[in-house]
């Protein structure tokens, strides 16, 4: 539904978006990650047709955003960063206006209003003016606006920013549910969100795509991914280290005493062999009759990956 090809956006000498390409199909939820100022919002503004690109091409449902903006925009629902809405309007009035702008009228308008009101839990505040609302409600009002025409493509710039944990959960569920039938791009810097609702994630840094893959693939890039942690008691650290080092699949082994227990960390000799490594370690435990209370394989953590690849020094090299 969304294709972005070689997108470049320059502001004077500064290159905010530097040759970004990606694609989002129907049924996909793409998480857009990156440090502040990485070019996430700029990319989204170009995709939604707010900003023209310096070069490159964006199409939505086959319509070129630069050449046929109105047809492209009809397919998109957009929640801008900071979720703006008109403060002097009531929530209901604002949503009715959004419906008007989307060409909905009569019964279709009424049912659309009812649908988004329920989806975004706005029943209680429909007649309240936007500037009297709390941040969470304002945010959801703007989100409701982006859903009013049941768009095929959703572009959400930090959809859970400023919400409380319950609301965050609701919005994530909503995104996940809608992701089954729509193409969704959303930006965030909350990494657990990516794991919770994305089918794919892109990390961008300084205007470039540095990684693109499923959350699992991204997590596997963590240095700790595949490492096996074992916690045993009744043995000393030296023995544990010696026995575990004999395991064929093991790379570096460290063991240290923590109170009455010994915690051993076993890195795989080659990455991606975590499953076998855990088995091999379990065999050692079994053979030596160690008493253990923890044995697990590290999946890798997105925040480690994020820090590793967006760190200033790694970006410079």
């Amino acid at each position, binding site marked *: 539904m969304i294709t972005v090809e070689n997108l470049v956006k320059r*502001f004077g000498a500064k290159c905010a978006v530097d040759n970004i390409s990606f694609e989002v199909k129907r049924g996909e939820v793409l998480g857009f990650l990156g440090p502040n100022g990485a070019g996430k919002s700029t990319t989204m*503004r170009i995709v*939604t*047709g*707010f*900003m*023209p690109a310096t070069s490159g091409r964006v199409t939505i449902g086959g319509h070129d955003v630069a050449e046929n903006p*109105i*047809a492209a*925009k*009809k397919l*998109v629902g*957009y929640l*801008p*960063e*900071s979720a*703006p*809405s*008109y*403060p*002097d*309007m009531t929530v209901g*009035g604002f949503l009715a*206006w*959004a419906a*008007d*702008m*989307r*060409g909905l009228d009569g019964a279709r308008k009424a049912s659309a209003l009812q649908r988004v009101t329920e989806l975004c839990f706005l029943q209680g505040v429909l007649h309240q003016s936007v500037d009297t609302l709390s941040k969470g409600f304002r945010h959801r009002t*703007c989100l409701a*606006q982006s859903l009013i025409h049941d768009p095929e493509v959703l572009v959400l710039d930090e959809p859970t920013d400023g919400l409380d944990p319950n609301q965050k959960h609701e919005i994530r569920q909503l995104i996940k549910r809608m992701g089954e039938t729509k193409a969704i791009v959303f930006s965030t810097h909350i990494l657990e969100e990516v794991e919770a609702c994305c089918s794919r994630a892109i990390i961008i840094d300084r205007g470039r795509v540095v990684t693109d893959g499923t959350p699992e693939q991204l997590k596997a890039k963590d240095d700790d991914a595949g490492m096996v942690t074992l916690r045993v008691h009744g043995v000393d650290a030296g023995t544990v280290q010696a026995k575990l080092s004999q395991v064929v699949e093991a790379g570096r082994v460290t063991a240290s005493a923590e109170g009455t227990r010994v915690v051993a960390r076993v890195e795989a000799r080659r990455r991606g062999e975590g499953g076998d490594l855990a088995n091999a370690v379990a065999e050692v435990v079994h053979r030596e009759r160690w008493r253990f209370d923890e044995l697990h394989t590290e999946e890798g953590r997105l925040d480690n990956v994020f820090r590793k690849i967006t760190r200033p020094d790694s970006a410079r090299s």
Partner: protein
Amino acid sequence: MEGTGRGVVVRRMKATRFMDQERTNMSEGLRNMWAISRRELGGYFNSPVAYVFIVIFLLLNGFFTFSLGYYFERGQASLAEPFFSWHPWLYLFLVPSVGMRLWAEERRSGTLELLLTMPIAPWQAIVGKFLASWIFLGIALVLTFPIVLTTAYLGDPDNGSVLAGYLGSFLLAGAYLGVTELMSAVTRNQIIAFIISVVVCFFLILCGWEPVTQFLVNHLPDGVVSLVKGLSTWYHFLAFQRGVIDVRDLLYFGSVMGFSLFATSVVLRGVRGA
């Protein structure tokens, strides 16, 4: 024979379909524009600003007409001098105060992004906003009707000139409003938009105001002076004020509005790209 006949029919059908397409685009455009105008108008009347504005406008009109305009002392059943001649000065401050928020507020609050990612052409938003403010100014102007009734009661005014005066006044407001909308797009600060608009509109008055043109005549060649005078809202409003509707004056006001709305679209393109 039959074949060519069918060809013509097909072509005609294509043409109609094309025209239908155009028509739906057109009506869609009007509908979008109206949705924007209605929101803006609602914005005026939902806040006390509209009522405060109208009250101030009417009070000032009364003050100028009766006190400074010597309405009664003149003993003439005419609105030209005591009433309409003040409008260029009144509008100088009141029109920018109505129009200053049009784009500045959208830019400041970030709703510009929302508005311009809606499936509308930018001109629809620009014209829609313009119309909303212009209609609002029109409503304020219509509410000055008691002065017409008073004049009609006291004497026998020329209805044609009164209408021409109102038309001119409305067009003058539109011209100032165009300038204000443009300035409002230039900045995200309403106050700055207001000040620049007042200054620009002031120059548009000054360059045709008699004391200034008198001064210019002594220093500049005639051609330049009449060119400068021709740019003035004052000069073109004068005819309407006297009850004359001249095509050239209509053209002038039309082009001031057209030009400033076009310039607004150029500025907005820059704002989006920046």
